[in-house]
């Protein structure tokens, strides 16, 4: 006990010095610190971009960033719940494509916006439930089940569209994607609403807590009475339904639908979740983190646009960011264990 006097007294004085701000920081729960880090990164990114490009801090650009981040967040919020259970949904992009094409076709054929909206949401939901059943009943690994689903949906959508493009929708429908209220795009209101719903659901409801429990340790969750299978079906169903909602917004914004609409959204959606600090190994993460992740990714891609970097680089950068995010998550987890 006596030998390490020097170092222990040094440590004690260091602790005393740190008792102010740093003590407060240490006292914060892990999830709050992890989100705070990401908010800091977001702030620095904004600062860097405003120096790098004059066009960044303009109202038009910021509104545009928010609009894009809103779509990404809505899609990624459902994926967040899936990844919280240590699963993965690779089918969200193909789900967006199929739901959007179905909604577009029905809207053209009947002229009914209500029918189209219900069809889009219902299609997304059904695909999600199908994923959940493949995973729970057939016991397929989630990435295999949803990867197979991706290609099945891809083919069905192409068969159904026959290579045609459907465009020109009623203004009332287009408002979902491109409308404004008080100068703020409608998708942004949806983003805020679903952020609230998502945070309350995940943090404050029994079902939400059970989803975390399933991700942290499925066996322990089962033993403590959590219906693991039905919670798994639930998260894939929510992910599917959110893809259905995202498909409507995307459709309304583009005002046209082709067989591959939205297929490229899968990688960014998963990237947003992982950047937001949700762990691929389940049980750790938050919907709010995903919002920050969606904003960071959108800002990076927006910055590349402003700096006139070819959009061909976007998948490269997104791919690198995905790998980097998981790598950093692994590092911090190893740090926790020590």
């Amino acid at each position, binding site marked *: 006990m006596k030998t390490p006097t020097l170092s222990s007294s040094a440590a004690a004085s260091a602790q005393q010095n740190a008792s102010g701000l740093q003590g407060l920081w240490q006292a914060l729960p892990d999830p709050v610190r992890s989100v705070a880090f990401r908010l800091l990164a977001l702030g620095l990114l904004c600062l860097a971009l405003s120096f790098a490009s004059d066009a960044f801090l303009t109202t038009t650009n910021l509104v545009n960033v928010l609009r894009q981040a809103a779509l990404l967040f809505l899609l990624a919020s459902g994926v967040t719940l899936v990844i919280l259970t240590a699963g993965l949904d690779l089918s969200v992009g193909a789900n967006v494509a199929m739901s959007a094409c179905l909604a577009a076709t029905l809207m053209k054929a009947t002229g009914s916006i209500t029918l189209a909206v219900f069809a889009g949401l219902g299609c997304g939901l059904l695909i999600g439930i199908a994923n959940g059943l*493949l995973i729970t009943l057939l*016991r397929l690994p989630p990435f*295999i089940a949803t990867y197979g689903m991706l290609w099945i949906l891809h083919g069905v959508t192409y068969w159904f569209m026959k290579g045609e493009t459907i465009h020109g929708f009623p203004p009332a429908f287009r408002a979902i994607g491109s409308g404004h209220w008080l100068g703020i795009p409608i998708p942004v209101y949806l983003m805020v609403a679903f952020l609230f719903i998502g945070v309350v659901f995940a943090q404050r409801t029994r079902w939400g807590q059970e989803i975390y429990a399933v991700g942290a340790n499925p066996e322990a969750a089962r033993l403590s009475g959590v219906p693991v299978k039905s919670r798994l079906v639930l998260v894939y169903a929510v992910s599917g339904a959110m893809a259905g909602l995202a498909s409507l917004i995307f459709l309304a914004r583009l005002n046209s639908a082709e067989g591959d609409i939205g297929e490229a959204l899968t990688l960014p959606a998963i990237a947003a979740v992982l950047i937001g600090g949700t762990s691929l190994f389940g049980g750790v993460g938050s919907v709010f983190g995903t919002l920050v992740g969606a904003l960071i990714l959108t800002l990076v891609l927006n910055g590349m646009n402003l700096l006139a970097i070819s959009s061909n680089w976007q998948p490269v950068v997104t791919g690198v960011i995905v790998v980097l995010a*998981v790598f950093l998550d692994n590092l911090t987890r190893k740090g926790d264990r020590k």
Partner: protein
Amino acid sequence: MHEMTVRAEPVEGVGKLTARLKHAGSASGALMMLIVLCAVFAFSTENFLDGANLVNVAVQSTILLLLALPMTLIIMTEGLDLSMGAVLTLANVVLATVAVNTGGVSLALLAALGVGLAFGLVNGTLVSRLGIPPFVATLGTLGAAQGLALVVTDGQSVVGIPASVQMFYSGAFLGVPAPIWIAGIAYALFHVVLYHTRFGANVFALGGNREALTLAGVRTRLYLVAVYVIGGLMAGLAALLLTARISSGHPTAALGMEFDAIAAVAVGGTSFEKGKGWLLGTLIGVLAVGVLRNGLNLMGVTSAVQVSAIGLLVILALMIDAFRGKQS
């Protein structure tokens, strides 16, 4: 310790026999699917059973086999390589660009193999050293390869492929088409390496028995990297056949082809979770996917829609597998 683990390998002694017997189950499943598919198309199309068409199926399946062989090894180690199609695409545009500029094959093939080697090393390192789950690591590199293929070509096709390259797909030697020679040699090499070398035995153990392998002093991480590197190199080699086949380099040429490869492996009875792999099953799986695509082609079904059918085939195979698992 070492002796014991080696004995436990399904490739030696008694283990070998039981492994073969167990595979007979998946064998009948995969073979049955292939036969049913052939029967369906023999009845529903006029030309399926023509000699020329059957040769066509075999030749067209060669590129897929080159991907499915290493994919079998990767899946046996409880891994996955989603980037294979994108890496093949990138290797295709690089090979095409170099071939057009140099007029020859050797440098172009080297460049394509280099692309494959680089992505294989990155994938293997991400999975084995950094502990990133394979499906996410390779999803990331998929994005990277896909983007780079666009960057290299600026979204344009590369045309003017020299005849010396095209020969590798359209040529023949001793009356047998060149791609069949290449795929056949590749298959034989994989067979020897997987079933008759220490390397192969260790690859089997990587999936089912990794802990024992580590305890026995085998450098498992190195083996994992090697498996992904083989995947990358085979994608580079497949780029030679693909470029020769389509006589061009195209920035989206083989995107999604990893799905066909994964499907062939799954139909062939290799398990995603238990470190069981079977090369002949993969060959049958490749032929099943090839027959399905060819038959649907004859029926006028577009390529994108064929993918749905392959997806259903995989689900069917997995369901049969799950059903068998419950029975035993």
